[in-house]
Each structure stands twice: as structure tokens, then as C-alpha cells.
């Protein structure tokens, strides 16, 4: 027992000395979580947006219309999500749109001042505002936001500033919640699994192939340590690092006020189950690699494919068949789905257990068959 503890300690200290190991396992998922929620929870948040809108008046605005738009476009207006740039020529504005200096270009056409009269004579035709945009993603967002913005103004003008009594609720797949479902709640299970994947796909196989390449197995076989003792220490050293990583992520989740479901027993149990499944797959991968070069490249492919094709950050069930097979093939899709179901307070499906279990059993079987052979070959 003491031998195992000492060896675990040695393995843990050894891997922690490598800058890459604590960085990618602990620091990177934490930074990733902060960065992603600061990006994607800000969409639609007026305070964070500063899209640039170019404006050109074919004819100066007058009367009520002038007052309305002066107030709307005023930099003092807190509801205005745009920085307004006025142009004195149409060509210059359009050129600046094409040069991405502005994100959309709005033309107030000739006779737009007829709107002053339309407030009193409803039947009057007023020419439409022309909004030029490009297919660059920033421009598309600016265009969509401007559309919603003007729509809101239309409602206000019609109701003479009165707020419409319309109650708006949002539900996630039929589950009504008192708190809105936020991107941080959606992301947290993915970040946990990302951390586990780093250990399983990089740390474990790299250590294994390093041991094979450097003849560590051979050296250990001449010591009193058994192959099982070596295996247990190896696994424990990685689990300790993983627990530290999860601990840091939970502190972060607490600070960011992630859904309280993550502290419930069923979520923690399912997270532990996920660790068992993914680490088993990590052992299976370890048995495949013959050298560090192959381990590095193949692990990168598996890691990148898994994090993007398991529904971590976006829905991939609608993707083309050429990549969709991987979505259904890899166990992480079912694990992240299971965790999210628990976070939404619903029960997990059989598939969330069955497929990961099949992966776990198969991986352990393959690893146990090849582990001895790896040591034997090394001798």
C-alpha cells in the first residue's frame, strides 16, 4: 500500500511539473468557461454592443420625425445599441460599409418627412428606410438588431409610448423554470467533460506512450512494484489531478452562480460515472499508441472532433451525415446530454447510461488484454 502511495505521489508530482498538464487540465477549462459566458451571455445585451451604423439623409429630417430620431440616435439614449456615424454622401457611406468601417448603412429617403403627416393621416404612403448590409457576420447581427430596434419604435409610436401588456415566458423543452436557463448552465457540464477529456485523451495516453518510449516499464519491472500496483498508481495520480480541476471548476461555478442542480447528488453521481467512462476510454487509447508522435496527433484529432461533435457548445444533431455518425458514436454526446437533463430537473434516458456503459466495458476489456502485452513487449 505504501509503495502505491509513494508511486502515486511520484507520478503526480512528475506530471504536475510539466507546464502543459496543470494548464490544460485546470487553468484552460476555467478560463474557457469565463470567456465563453462573457461572450455568449452578452449577445443581445445593449451595454456590451457597439455596432456602428452609418446614416445618410437624402433630405434633412423635420418636425416630429426629426425630434424622434434625434432622441433615438442620441448617444445619451441608454437603449441605443449603436454608434451612429452620419455621412454627407451615399457613396462614402456605402464604401465604408464595404470596408467594414460601419456594420450597416441606413438611408433616410426623399419624402421620409411625410411621416410627420402620416401621424395624422394614416393612409399616407411613406417611403421605407433603406438598410444596406453585407454578409459579414458583424453586419448581419447589426442588421437584425436594427430591425428589432425599429420594430420596437413602431410599437411605441402606435401605442403613444404606452407599454403593451404582453407577458413573455420562456421554457426549455417543456420544463417551466422560475429562473431563466442561462448559457452558463448549458456550458458547465461541457466544461466538466472537457476537463475529464483532457486527462483521458492527452495526459493518460501521453504518459503511457512516454513510459513505453523511455523504457520506464522495464525499469519498474526490475523493482518490487507489481504491474497492478503500477497501474493503480498511474490511474490514481491522474484522478487526483482531475479532482483538483473539478474542485476549481465548482468554485468558479459557485462564484458565477451556476444552477444549484450541480450540487445535487444525482448530478455529482452522474459526473463520477462520466469520469469512469471517459477514463476507461483514455486507458483504451493509451493501449493504442506506440510512440509520443502518434499519441500527440491522434489525440488532437479525437479531442477536437469530440469537443465539437458532442453538442458541447452547439446542437449537432442536425449536422450532415458525414459528421453526424460521430455525434451518435461517441459516448460523450450521451454524457453531456445526461448531465443537462439532470440540470433541467428531468430524468435521464436509458441511452444516457447504456451507451457509455458499453464503451466503458469494451475499453476496459481491450486495455486489460493489451496492458500486459505492452509491459511484456517493453521487456
Amino acid at each position, binding site marked *: 500500500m505504501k509503495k502505491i502511495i509513494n508511486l502515486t505521489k511520484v507520478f503526480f508530482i512528475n506530471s504536475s511539473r*510539466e507546464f*502543459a498538464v496543470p494548464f490544460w487540465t485546470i487553468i*484552460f477549462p476555467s478560463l474557457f468557461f469565463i470567456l465563453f459566458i*462573457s*461572450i*455568449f451571455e*452578452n*449577445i443581445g445585451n445593449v451595454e*456590451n*454592443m*457597439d455596432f456602428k451604423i452609418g446614416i445618410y439623409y437624402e433630405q434633412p429630417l423635420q418636425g416630429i420625425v426629426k425630434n424622434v430620431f434625434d432622441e433615438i440616435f442620441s448617444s445619451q439614449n441608454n437603449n441605443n445599441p449603436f454608434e451612429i456615424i452620419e455621412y454627407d454622401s451615399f457613396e462614402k457611406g456605402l*464604401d465604408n460599409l*464595404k470596408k467594414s468601417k460601419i456594420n450597416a448603412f441606413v438611408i433616410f429617403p426623399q419624402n421620409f418627412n411625410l*411621416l410627420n403627416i402620416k401621424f395624422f393621416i394614416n393612409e399616407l404612403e*411613406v417611403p*421605407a*428606410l*433603406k*438598410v444596406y*448590409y*453585407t*454578409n*459579414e*457576420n*458583424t453586419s448581419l*447581427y447589426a442588421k*437584425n*438588431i436594427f*430591425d*428589432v430596434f*425599429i420594430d420596437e419604435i*413602431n*410599437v411605441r*409610436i402606435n*401605442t403613444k409610448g404606452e407599454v*403593451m401588456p*404582453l*407577458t*413573455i*415566458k*420562456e*421554457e*426549455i*423543452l*417543456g420544463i417551466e423554470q422560475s429562473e431563466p436557463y442561462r448559457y452558463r448552465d*448549458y456550458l458547465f457540464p461541457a466544461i466538466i467533460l472537457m476537463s475529464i477529456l483532457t486527462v483521458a485523451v492527452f495526459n493518460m495516453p501521453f504518459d503511457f506512450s512516454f513510459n513505453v518510449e523511455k523504457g520506464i516499464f522495464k525499469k519498474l519491472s526490475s523493482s518490487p512494484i507489481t504491474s497492478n500496483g503500477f497501474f493503480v498508481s498511474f490511474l490514481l495520480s491522474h484522478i487526483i489531478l482531475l479532482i483538483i480541476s473539478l474542485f476549481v471548476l465548482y468554485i468558479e461555478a459557485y462564484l458565477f452562480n451556476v444552477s444549484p442542480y450541480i450540487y445535487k447528488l444525482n448530478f455529482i453521481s452522474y459526473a463520477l460515472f462520466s469520469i469512469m467512462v471517459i477514463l476507461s476510454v483514455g486507458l483504451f487509447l493509451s493501449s493504442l499508441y506506440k510512440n509520443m*508522435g502518434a499519441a*500527440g*496527433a491522434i489525440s*488532437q*484529432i479525437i479531442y477536437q*472532433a469530440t469537443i465539437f461533435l458532442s*453538442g458541447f*457548445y*452547439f*446542437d449537432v444533431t*442536425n449536422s450532415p451525415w*458525414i*459528421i453526424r455518425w460521430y455525434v451518435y458514436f461517441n459516448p460523450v454526446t450521451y454524457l453531456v446530454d445526461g448531465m*443537462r437533463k439532470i440540470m433541467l430537473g428531468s430524468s435521464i434516458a436509458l441511452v444516457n447510461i447504456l451507451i457509455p456503459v458499453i464503451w466503458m466495458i469494451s475499453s476496459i476489456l481491450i486495455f486489460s488484454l493489451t496492458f500486459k502485452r505492452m509491459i511484456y513487449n517493453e521487456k
Partner: protein
Amino acid sequence: MKNKRMFSLISIFSKETFRNWMEVFFTLLLPILLLLLFGTIFGTEASSNNDEYQIGIVGDVDETITNLIPYQVVFLDDKNSITKALDQNQVDLGLIINDENKEITFVQKEPDMNDQSTIFIKLELQNILKKHYAGIKEDFINIEFIETSIGASPENSLDFIITGVIALSLLSGGMFSMINVFGRYKKYGLIKRFLASPVKPLEFTLSASISKLFLNLISMFIIIILGGVLFNLNFYFNWLSLFCVFISSSIGMMGLGVLLLLIFKDPAVTSEVATILYVAMTFFSGVYFPIEFLPKSIRWISNLLPVKYVTDLIRFSGNIKQITLNNFIVINLVLFISGSVLMFISSKVFLKEEK
């Protein structure tokens, strides 16, 4: 500088490069993988029309409301049927309308990263219903949207993503290649052995760079061909300016790789720092999502990273980004000169140290 010796060295470096899994992965496979992943995921979204967006509605709905909604409307019986339809991808968004209480409930799958179109559609639907309940028959202010192409042909969102992937592949290829050459070769004592031969330091650096440029060139062409075949790119490259950008940005990034090696010394640490820098550059490049989505306080970082400028140059060569010719020349020159100077220094510093 003997031509034959240079040719032999380039040939040796090229063979060695293709035998190194990690280098081939970062230069060839990773960009292809990212192209396939983001092309298929975001490409489907870019090509899909908003008119195809399906809304499942539950409630006693007036026909006037459905006429106002500019999307496909599917009538469903109850909340459970919305759940089922969402699960089976038959509808994109569920909407329960309670006419009496003037209450609407949006039902959807979990929000995800590329689900921003739903945010705007929900806001649009809210306004349509507000207008309906306020008895508004006609808008005071109408908008006519006019799509404008930046270049000669109308481009789509996917064109911007693919040109971004090319820029990122040039960055990773250039940066990691030099870390490998001066890091790995130095670690294995290869440079020392080369210098015992009649090979001059500059010949060594030049031949190593040319072999890496060759790998980068292959990577770029694979992405362009795959992008064209799989995703029907709408733009055409100006090959001359693309070639200039390829040379300047590859050499510039090789210089960055060398700079990192000069700072961090240890190749393993440098490689890790370069990987972190690469990940940071993907966030701050504006390739996958607008830089405007980043918190205001950290947006300035994108101006410091070369990825923003290389992406602009590639898009300019693809005629989907307009920058002035002066800017194009200045950015190319800055990348080329700084990269060349750093590589010249490296051939002196690293190869001298080895002696």
C-alpha cells in the same frame, strides 16, 4: 551557397517534416478538420433561409397573426406535441399563445452557441404579437433591407469562415514549423551535426524555411480545393495577391515562432505557449464569431494579434474584404520584414549557441 546542397537540404527537411505526425497534424490535418467541422455546422446555417424556419404554435390563434408571421407555421395540439416536434427537429421553435391573458411562451431546446438567429426571431415574434394586441395594422416606419456584396461576387457567411480557416492554418503552420526546426532539431543535437558539415547557418535556415513553406502551401491549397468542392465557395482568389500574402504571413509567423523560442528557450515550453497563443488567436480572430461579441474590456487584444491582419489580407485576396492597397502593402511588408529579420537573427543565435 551551393544550389545542389540547398536542394538536398530542402529534400531532407521535407521528408523529415512529413514523418513528424505533430507537424503534419497542426499544418495539414487540424485546418482540414476545422474546415470540415465549421463548414458543415455553420455552412448549413449560412445556406439555410429564414423562410424555412418552422414555428410550432399552440393556442386559439387568429388567422391574422399567422399571416403576419414571416416563417413557416405548424399548428400543434398542446405543449407535449411541441416537445415532441422539437425533439424530432420538426419545428425550430415552439410558441404557446394564450389570447385571453395576453401571454406568450416560447418553447425551445437548450440555447446553444450558434442559436443567435433564434434570439432575433423571438424578438421579432414578440413585436408582431404586441402589434396584434395593440391593434396595429400598419407600421409607421418600414424598412427595405438591401444585401450588398463587398467584392465582385455576392459572398456568404461561410466564405468569411473559410478564409479565416486559411489564415489560421498559415499562422499555425508558420509558427509551429520554426519551433520544431530550432526546438526539436536542437534538442536532438541535429543542428550541431549539420554545422560539422559544410552547411552554412543561413543555408540551414533557408532550406528549413522553404520546406515548411512548401508544407504550408499544400495545406492552403487543400483547404481552398476542399472548400470549393464541398461548400461551393462564392469568391475567386486573386492568385498573385494570395501568393504575396502566403509568403509574407508564413514568414511573419515563422518569425513569431522564432521570437517565442528566443523568449522561452525550452522547445517544450515554447510549443505549449504557441498552442495557447493559437487558441487565443482563434478567439480573437473574429473568424467564428464577431469580435463585437467579446467583452469591451478585452477587445483591444485582437488588435495586437497578427491573426486579425492576416485574416484581412486573405479576405482581401478573395475579394470579400476591402482594404486600401497601401494597407495591404504595409501589412505584407511588416510581416515579411519582421519575419525575415527574426529568422536571420535566429540563424545567428541558435546556430552559434550550438557551436
